[in-house]
């Protein structure tokens, strides 16, 4: 059984990304770990720092997982970051002002996420509006609603310790939210790679008309990915609130762009059809390690510009990852034909 060419190409992209991730890790371990005056090891090479990276990547990671099926259908959802903010303050309001117990409020928040995702889905599949425009609209709408509800000033705090456990404590040795994240990642992986739904996402992404002619319910499938994105964004909002212990209207500002970057870095084609959940996870990790690692470099600390350099390097990494594919292909076409043909026997 010979691996098909697209499979091996995907494999190569993920391998490449894994190598980048390992290189980042080794680099920061080497240059970002120091011993302070009291002889305590600080910086990148500590378990605390590693857990910190994990905690911080959960929310953007969840959004990236939400966006992977969306982008597979050749769509986009710019509203997930704003929806995170809206869900965070609605969750806070339901618990604080509504007096609902936390599990109840959380459940309702997930439902709100589904409804918000359903709004995107309805506009995109019902009215056939372009996803970019629809979610650009709801991107402003959701954030605006969040600001309006809080008047831009209210922050909900004083959540019970049992709730903060999900964002600040450990369970079975790992940060609690990492387990939630892993569960969602497994779920999305099963959906995308092992179910007929994932198959139809790809078909719709490659050729929506072709999928329709094959009798696939393209509209319903596409609607599903946006609704799912809404639910996952709501879950990210709850975890975010649990990590910071507060819910405010500007939660998750700009997260959608980091999430899209992670998905594309992970090898998912922005034109739809091809991509993988594993790639997305590697993309999230590569960005998270880069951001967190830079903050541990003495040179960067002295400059006090970790954020800026992280942005710069993330951009460079993304462009490199995007250019690598076409460049490799161009190189292989320059080589003798023999090297491109599938296995001889």
């Amino acid at each position: 059984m010979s691996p098909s060419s697209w499979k091996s190409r995907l494999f190569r992209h993920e391998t490449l990304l894994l190598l980048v991730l390992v290189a980042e890790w080794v680099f920061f371990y080497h240059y970002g770990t120091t011993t302070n005056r009291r002889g305590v090891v600080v910086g990148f090479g500590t378990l605390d720092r590693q857990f910190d990276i994990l905690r911080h990547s959960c929310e953007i990671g969840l959004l990236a997982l939400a966006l992977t099926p969306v982008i597979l259908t050749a769509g986009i959802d710019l509203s997930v970051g704003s929806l995170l903010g809206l869900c965070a303050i609605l969750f806070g309001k339901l618990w604080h002002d509504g007096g609902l117990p936390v599990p109840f409020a959380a459940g309702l928040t997930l439902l709100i996420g589904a409804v918000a995702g359903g709004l995107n889905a309805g506009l995109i599949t019902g009215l056939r509006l372009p996803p970019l425009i629809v979610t650009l609209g709801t991107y402003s709408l959701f954030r605006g609603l969040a600001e309006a509800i809080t008047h831009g000033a209210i922050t909900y705090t004083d959540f019970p310790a049992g709730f903060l456990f999900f964002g600040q404590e450990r369970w079975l040795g790992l940060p609690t939210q990492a387990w939630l994240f892993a569960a969602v990642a497994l779920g999305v992986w099963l959906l995308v790679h092992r179910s007929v739904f994932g198959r139809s996402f790809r078909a719709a992404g490659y050729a929506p008309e072709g999928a329709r002619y094959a009798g696939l319910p393209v509209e319903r499938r596409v609607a599903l990915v946006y609704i799912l994105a809404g639910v996952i964004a709501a879950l990210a909002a709850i975890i975010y609130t649990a990590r910071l212990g507060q819910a405010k209207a500007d939660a998750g500002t700009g997260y959608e762009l980091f999430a899209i970057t992670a998905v594309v870095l992970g090898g998912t084609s922005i034109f739809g059809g091809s991509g993988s959940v594993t790639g997305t996870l590697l993309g999230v990790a590569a960005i998270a390690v880069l951001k967190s690692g830079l903050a541990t470099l003495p040179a960067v600390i002295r400059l006090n510009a970790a954020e800026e350099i992280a942005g710069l390097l993330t951009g460079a990494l993304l462009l490199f990852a995007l250019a690598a594919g076409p460049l490799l292909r161009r190189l292989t076409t320059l080589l003798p034909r023999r090297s491109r043909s599938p296995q001889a026997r």
Partner: protein
Amino acid sequence: MSASDAPTPAHGAPAPLLKLERITKSYGGVRALRGVDFELAAGEVHALLGENGAGKSTLIKVATGAHAPDSGRITLGGRTLPALTPVLAQELGIACIYQQPALFPDLSVAENLGLRLERGGRCRRIRWGERRELASRLLARVGAGIDPAAEVRELSMPEQQLVEIACAVGAGAQIVIMDEPTASLTRREQESLFAVVRDLQAHGVGIVYISHRLEEIFALADRVTVLRDGESVGTRPIREHGQTLSEADLIRLMVGREVARLYPPAESVPGEVVLALQDVGCRASGVRQVSLEVRAGEILGLAGLVGAGRTELARLLFGLTPADSGQIRLNGQAVTLRSPREAIARGIAYVPEDRRRHGVILELPIEQNLTLAVHRRLFPGGWLRDGAERSLAEGFIERLGIKCAGPSHPVGTLSGGNQQKVSLGRWLATQPKVLILDEPTQGVDVGAKSEIHRIIRQLAKEGLAVILISSDLPEVLGMSGRIGVMRGGTLVATLPGGTEAPVVMAAALGQGGGK
């Protein structure tokens, strides 16, 4: 090089305006033109006639300089041209009016005319007064009561065509090519178009007139050249020695005499009626009052010209553009077919015409394409089962003889014929009762074509009701037990198998024929 080289036309007219000699043109491996001769005299309406795919469009593209011929000679007004480009063609006075006018919809009529006709540098003042005046003059000349200030998007299709003609007149075109100009016109609009054509003719303009409507050709043309399979099979004057060319002669020229006996003999005996349509129509797609029956084990051919409504009927049966009138019965039961999903569930399968866009998904592996329509049956519970998928795919690869390096390779890596087999296999996997094939052998090589024919025969023998849509007349005649002929969105004739090609073509063209 001089005009005296050219043989003088019989009626002693001066050298022709346009002369195409032994033009050949291939696209990939397909030979669209294999040595066409064509000649246009000043003040002449010369009709160009031929079946779908006979090479008319390619010939126009060569004459307007859009495509360079592979070989042959183009002579314009006595001058042999080594190479014709669209710009040069325009300068030399060749204008082409397409079925779909290529005007800017958001600009006014005057602006559209100005853009095409005004000369001068990039930086110059627009003289709006002159522009408007030119536009009104040209529009008056072609007898169009159109306001020059109107936006083109507000104009009807025939009005837009008139703007195009005005443009050709304004450019001082000596040769005007009209590609099915009346396809979207009403009777009255046709008459006024004819008046314009005759007026141009009186001014010495040569007109190449392409149309499927024989009555127009007889009303308008001086001569007619018939193309068949990329060759010019004859040029005839419409009226000679007081006698009019007969329609029958013209049709015989179009279809040729011999229908090659390349087709496998029919082995099946039609059984029960599987699909029956009674006055079925769909306003949106223009299908009207179609009544037909297809039996198990029967191949019903559907012949007709492009735009006759055959694909539209297929889309109706597959639930893509559902019927809004009439009754559809499957195995005697009245059914509705409102979506492909419903049609599939009822046992209807449709192998679409546009293989690369609709028939297969090029980027997906062969096995995934083959199972795309049977997810529910193959993957109960919704979870993929690689083993089941692989064995189904391998079964079809063997049964249909799909030549590939393995089931996990993308369909895009296959040849056209093998892609078509994948498209066919996907639908056979649904175990249909009715199989609709839309141009199943278009763009596939000869070998794959006869394999596909053999497969279709085999399927009919196994009891499938097959509807075969094809513009390849010999294919329809050779494969079908009965032949339905469509024209203008409806079934105009049902002919028995073995009907002569000219009779079928006559029905498709609307020249009596049929019962």
